[in-house]
């Protein structure tokens, strides 16, 4: 880490505030990293050099003028290509929206701007945020900073690659079935999927309105949580964004925390490295928390199909007119997935929503009566090879893609907050990631446990295996 690429968001903001470095200098360095990394990572759809430098100059002037500054004042970030900013393109990683210029600014981007953050570009993503691998027919896939042969995870592929590759300290992603957690898991960084309704979706590309969440990807838990605090909270422009207590501060006192280990489908057939990582995390957590026990989960049979029905029925409604008018403008994989929506009769969609209410109640009454947080792996295996999920070339594609989301989708369906972080490194230098799941609105508990785990497990840095 260096002055122009500090270890944390707070360090960056403090360095600018103290005058150790200007926002322009830090932003120029981030832009240089973005440009230099593009061939290796393909993390950006667009690098916005001029507007970023203008914003950085304005930030430096505000500081010089003694005006009040936010907690991210002058700090360069980059975000998934799906958040509206007035006068800028929101392309959604697609051909269909590639030239769409937003007439208004999304609430999340407005809040980051109010906090003083600078945006240096739009990050790559799966087309319309559909796809857990990060493949993109139009822009090419973002490449995993640890090994380009591996997927980055998706759909927030550029967010995972840019943060994991050290280009920016943090980025916004979105999560409907694992789209923050999977890139975090594959790229060795931290991701937070907030509670459904915690963060405004105003001006955010819709995929599945009842499961979409905006959240951060960052190097460290504290950074991810700081970013969440900036964007969270009620919003009159999004009536589904709930007015609840804002995210609380983190604590290192976990002595009263009851940890439940998710068993059953979350423990069967794990890759050996993932199983070892889970064991290490449990061993490390045990002396830090009150109790560690096996969690009692409701019957999660068919939860993957239930979550998919909700997601694709809602996505099918959002995309209905384009599916009629310009289906050839979708990438083949996305067009196939969206077509599923026509095979879901209304009673099946509503049944999936009814069952969601029943499962959430069972979870609250039983699972979270016995545990404050649950832990589960993020994926049953290490980050897969891109070649195993390339459409039309791998007979294993469907099986690998389904398995990738099998541990993340249940918590999207239930709307629970989840923090994902790396807890181990395989012999081959790949990340093993854990999910920490809490009751609704208790991101603070999940993040507190995650931060303690992060401090207790000192992982070596993930390095680019292709450079060896």
């Amino acid at each position, binding site marked *: 880490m260096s002055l122009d690429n500090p270890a944390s968001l707070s360090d960056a903001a403090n360095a600018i505030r103290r005058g150790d470095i200007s926002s322009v200098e830090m932003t120029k360095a981030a832009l240089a990293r973005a440009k230099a990394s593009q061939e290796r990572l393909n993390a950006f759809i667009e690098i916005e050099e001029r507007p970023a430098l203008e914003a950085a100059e304005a930030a430096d002037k505000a500081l010089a003028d003694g005006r009040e500054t936010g907690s991210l004042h002058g700090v360069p970030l980059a975000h998934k290509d799906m958040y509206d900013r007035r006068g800028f393109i929101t392309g959604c990683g697609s051909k269909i929206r590639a030239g769409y210029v937003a007439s208004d600014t999304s609430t999340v981007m407005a809040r980051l701007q109010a906090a003083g953050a600078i945006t240096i570009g739009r990050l790559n993503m799966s087309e319309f945020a559909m796809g857990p691998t990060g493949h993109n027919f139009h822009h090419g896939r973002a490449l995993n900073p640890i090994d380009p042969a591996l997927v980055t995870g998706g759909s927030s592929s550029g967010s995972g690659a840019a943060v994991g590759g050290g280009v920016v300290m943090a980025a916004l992603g979105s999560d409907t079935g694992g789209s923050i957690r999977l890139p975090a898991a594959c790229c060795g960084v931290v991701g937070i999927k907030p509670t*459904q309704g915690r963060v405004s979706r105003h001006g955010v590309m819709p995929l599945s309105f009842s499961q979409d969440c905006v959240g951060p990807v960052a190097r460290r838990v504290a950074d991810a949580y700081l970013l969440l605090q900036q964007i969270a909270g009620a919003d009159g422009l999004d009536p589904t964004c709930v007015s609840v207590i804002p995210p609380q501060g983190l604590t290192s006192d976990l002595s009263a925390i009851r940890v439940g280990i998710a068993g059953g489908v979350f423990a069967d057939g794990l890759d050996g490295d993932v199983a070892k990582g889970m064991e290490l995390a449990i061993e490390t957590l045990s002396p830090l928390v009150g109790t560690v026990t096996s969690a009692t989960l409701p019957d999660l049979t068919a939860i993957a199909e239930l979550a998919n029905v909700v997601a694709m029925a809602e996505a099918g409604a959002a995309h209905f007119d384009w599916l*009629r008018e310009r*289906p050839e403008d979708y990438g083949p994989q996305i*067009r196939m997935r969206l077509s599923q929506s*026509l*095979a879901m009769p209304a009673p099946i969609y509503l*049944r999936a929503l009814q069952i969601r*209410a029943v499962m959430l*109640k069972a979870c*609250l009454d039983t699972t979270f009566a016995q545990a404050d947080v649950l832990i589960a792996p993020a994926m049953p295996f290490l980050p897969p090879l891109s070649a195993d999920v390339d459409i039309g070339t791998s007979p294993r594609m469907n099986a690998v893609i389904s398995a990738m989301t099998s541990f993340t989708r249940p918590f999207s369906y239930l709307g629970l907050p989840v923090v994902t972080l790396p807890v181990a490194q395989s012999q081959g230098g790949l990340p093993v990631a854990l999910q920490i799941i809490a009751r609704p609105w208790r991101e603070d508990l999940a993040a507190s446990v995650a931060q303690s785990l992060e401090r207790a497990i000192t992982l070596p840095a993930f390095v680019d295996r292709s450079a060896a």
Partner: protein
Amino acid sequence: MEIEKVMAALAESYWGRHASEPELLAMTGELRRDSASIAPSALGRGGALFTVEPAHYDALMQAEAKR
């Protein structure tokens, strides 16, 4: 085969166009999976979901917010 015809008719009726072969494959696959897993869900047996509304989920989340 019959399912594929139904799916093709849905596409023509609602989208006003023919479904491509990959689309038909995805649609028939989806119907088969959902009919096998969601339709017979034990959680709905005996009318257990008769009075459950999707809004109950939002009510639970709201109640949690007030805890």
